[in-house]
Each structure stands twice: as structure tokens, then as C-alpha cells.
């Protein structure tokens, strides 16, 4: 399922969060993108066709990594640090 493969940083403290309601864990220093894609293979459906997307540039340029948070907010996964207790959603309805 996972897209990204961890090669380092295995020993860093664990950070707990939920992904679509399920308990998950990442590492201190992970971005939200890393935390999600080390367990899943998508971040969002594309706006129109709903095809799966999982980021692209990882440097805040393509805007293809926006995910929903529990409070209805949107964050850019590649440039947001993972925080304990985050409730992340990768399932949203496409725009049309």
C-alpha cells in the first residue's frame, strides 16, 4: 500500500495521528506527506476526474498534495510538519 519507503530516521520518536479515522503513526520530523505516503498510496482525488493523486514536487510548487484536516481545514501536505493528534483525511468528493 505505501508509496514511500523509509531508509533512515527509523529511531526517531513516534508521532500518532489518524488517517481517515484509523490510528496511524509517523516519526518526529515527518511532513504530513511522508506520514501519509509511508502508509498509503494517495493524498487526494483530483478535482475533476477524481483520479488519485499523491503529490508531485514535494517543494510547495505543484499544489497537488492538499489534504483535509479534522476541523475542515486544508493543508499542503509536503510543507506541513506532522503534529501529534492530527486527524487527516484523504477522501474527498471531486468538484464535478
Amino acid at each position: 500500500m505505501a508509496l514511500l519507503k523509509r531508509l533512515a530516521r527509523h529511531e526517531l520518536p513516534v508521532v500518532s495521528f489518524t488517517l481517515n479515522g484509523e490510528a496511524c503513526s509517523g516519526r518526529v520530523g515527518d511532513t504530513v506527506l511522508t506520514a501519509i505516503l509511508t502508509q498509503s498510496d494517495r493524498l487526494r482525488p483530483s478535482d475533476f476526474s477524481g483520479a488519485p493523486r499523491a503529490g508531485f514536487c514535494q517543494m510547495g510548487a505543484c499544489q497537488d498534495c492538499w489534504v483535509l484536516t479534522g476541523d475542515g481545514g486544508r493543508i499542503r501536505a509536503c510543507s506541513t510538519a506532522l503534529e501529534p493528534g492530527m486527524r487527516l483525511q484523504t477522501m474527498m468528493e471531486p468538484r464535478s
Partner: protein
Amino acid sequence: MSDATRPLIVGAGPAGIRAAQILVSSGIRPAVIDEAPSGGGQIYRQRLVADERSAKDLYGSEAAKATALHGTFAGIRDRIDYYPETLVWNLRDKAADAVTGHRTRRIPFSHLILATGATDRVLPFPGWTLPGVFTLGGSQIALKSQGCAIGEEVVFLGSGPLLYLVAWQYVKAGANVAAVLDTSQFSAKLHLLRGLFAQPSVVLRGFRYAAELMARGVAVRFGVQPVRIDGATRVEGVVWRERDVEHRLACDAIGYGFSLRSETQLADLAGCRFVFDARDRAWRPERDGAGRTTMPGVYIAGDGAGIAGADAAELAGERAGLALLEDVGLSVDHVRIGVLERKLASISKFRDVLEAAFPFPQAWANGISDDVTLCRCEEIAIGAVRDAVRDQGVFELNRLKALTRVGMGRCQGRMCGNAAVEVLAAACGQSPDAVGRLRAQPPIKPIPLGVMAEEETA
């Protein structure tokens, strides 16, 4: 110099940090803004938290430069006004609109140094929106900053020095690299021999990376024409053509890119005049050898001024800082200026060599089929450009944008802009400089909802 000298530097990469250092050394206190949480820019990007890896592990042959730059930035920290995790999203009336989290504020400046760097230049082809496809730069960030490979079996595809560098960094870090697929011909690499005089260490390092990849059993192919990335909901393989024979390789991740493109939106908003750079196949802000743009008090340095690499970015940042000092009437070291300008000229010549060794795939624009997604944000196909040319007589990029929405999505053309130019120009039978340039619009990147309103009532 008056007390009213309050320069703003956008970008804390090699160019921005060296510019700040020069200003600080003359007693000026610049503001430095960067979207990233810490200084270093793209190449010398820092991790969010330290881990078991050393600077050598992260930055390889460039570790000493990275450490020196980070050290410089830490050393001037209390003599600058530094705004990390802050995006400059607009420039107007000698002030920057800058957003940190949900708060936006206006930061006035007397002078502006733009050191905004670059992102990957990408071209669409079938399958490029699948999960598991990342840019080359993105693949490198995953490794450096996050300690992750983009997959279990990775293929690197495209052109440019970063192709071999990232592949080699992956292998060193213990990732499985299935292949390096270079779209340029092997014979083009012979141009690098010309570069041996100008930048011997860079050229030799490049050859070493390629040799080590091959020695470790990584398939390195030249003259590759990408056909498609296979996969239903994520990458399952890549198909390419080599001398008319089709090849397929199973893999679960692709890192790809064709060199870099400059981030020039702020220079546009600042009112700078642009010129077409035939080598980069892109418009860039016009500047003199010191980094002065056509707008008084606005300077530009580093990859945001045209692609030249990290060493040039440091030199150009220093040079732009010195230009600012000259312009406010402070004394500067002219011997040093001579040295900087000579080194920059030499690197610029070397860029010509690199461009010849890793040429842009010019055949792409006519070969790419109509149904391939051009714009990732708005999901517009290549065919929409050709239709607009044929049915509506479009021959200019901003007109194309208005009619098709290409370049209007969330990324503001960062991902599709170069490709749109190439397809439009090819469909019109023109060269890329003839179809115009996408205008930047504020906010130059999406800012959180609610921020605008808060600012308007302020």
C-alpha cells in the same frame, strides 16, 4: 546611506543568505523571508529535526559548502529580521504582502533582493499524474529531508545533471534504482569534455556518478523516448522507445524532470522587464552583471534569475548585495567584485556545455498525443491547446490561458507553463519566444482561506 535603508530579501537559499551577509557586514539590517522553516534553500535544505545522518550523508561532496552556508546564516541571525515559514504572495507600493500561517502582514522595503530559486521543469506524458511519479527535485527532497525513497523499485527519467546526481544519491542511501533513462543521446555527453577546463571537478564527479551507477548494475540508457507510465491507480511500470524498439520495465516509482525553471513571479509583480533566454527556453528578468533589474532598487540573484546552479547562486547573491551597497553610496571592494564577475562568467559558459550535454527534448511538443493531461490542476488535455490554435486562432499564451484555463490553476503554471509554451509554439509553427509569457497574479501561491479578509479589515 540613510536609516531608511531597509532591504528585503526574498529567499534564504545560497543567493539570499550571501546577499544578507554582505548587507549585514556593512551595518544594514535586512529582512529575510522564506517559505521554508529554516535556511539553506533547495540544495542545502535542512531537515525538520536532526537524525542519525551526517552532513556528508545528506549533502555528499557539497557538505562543506552546506555547513558553511548554514553557519553563516546562524551567525547573522540576530542582525537580520528573519521570517521563516512565510510566503511573499504579493508586492505592491514598495511593500511585500507576507503570510505566516493564517496571518498576513505588509512588510515595507527600501530595496528588494529576489533570490527565489527554481523548481523542476517537467513535461507531461501519459501516466505522469499517477501516484508514485515525483519530480527529480521532489525525489531528492524525500531522501534528504525525509529519509525516504519514493518507492521500492525506482526509475529516474529525463535529462539534466540532477538525473544522475539523484540516482546516485538513492543508490548510496540503499534504495533500489532499477534504471536511469536519459532522454539525451550518449554522444551529447561528449560536450562535457569541453567543460573539463572550466569546471573539472563538476564534470569528473558527473562521470563518476554514471560509472558507479553502472558498476552497481543500474541500467543506464541514452536517447530514451518516454512512451508512457503504466498503472491503474499507481505506478506499475514504464515504457520507452530506444532506436524504435519499445522497452518496458516494472517499477513502482518514477522520479523525473528536465532541468529546472526559475521562480520569477515576484520579479513580474515588481514590474521588472523580462527577456527571453534561448538557453533556458524561458523568459527571465532582465538584469545587469551585478543583478540589477530594470526597476531601480530591485535586484535578482541565483536560480530565480536564470538557471546557473548553487555555486553561482552564492556568488550572484554576494554580487547583488554589493550592488545594493554601491547604489546607496557605500564603499565596496572592487577587487572582490572583479573576482565574483569573472567566476560568474566562467560558470555561465559552463552552463552552455551542460545544456549541450543534456539538451531539451525538442521533439516532445509535436510527438505528445492530444489526450495526455497538460494541466494537472484543471485537468486540461494537450489537445485543448491545439484546438484553440486551430479553431480560435490563438497564438499567445495569456489568450490561451483565458480560453482554456491552462496556467490558471492552483500551481499558476509552474507545472504546465513550459509545456504549454512548447505545444502552443509548435502548433503555431513558431519558436517558444514568439508566444509570449504567462503573467504572474497575486496571490502567487494559494494562501489559506480567510487570510485575505483579515488583511482587508486591518
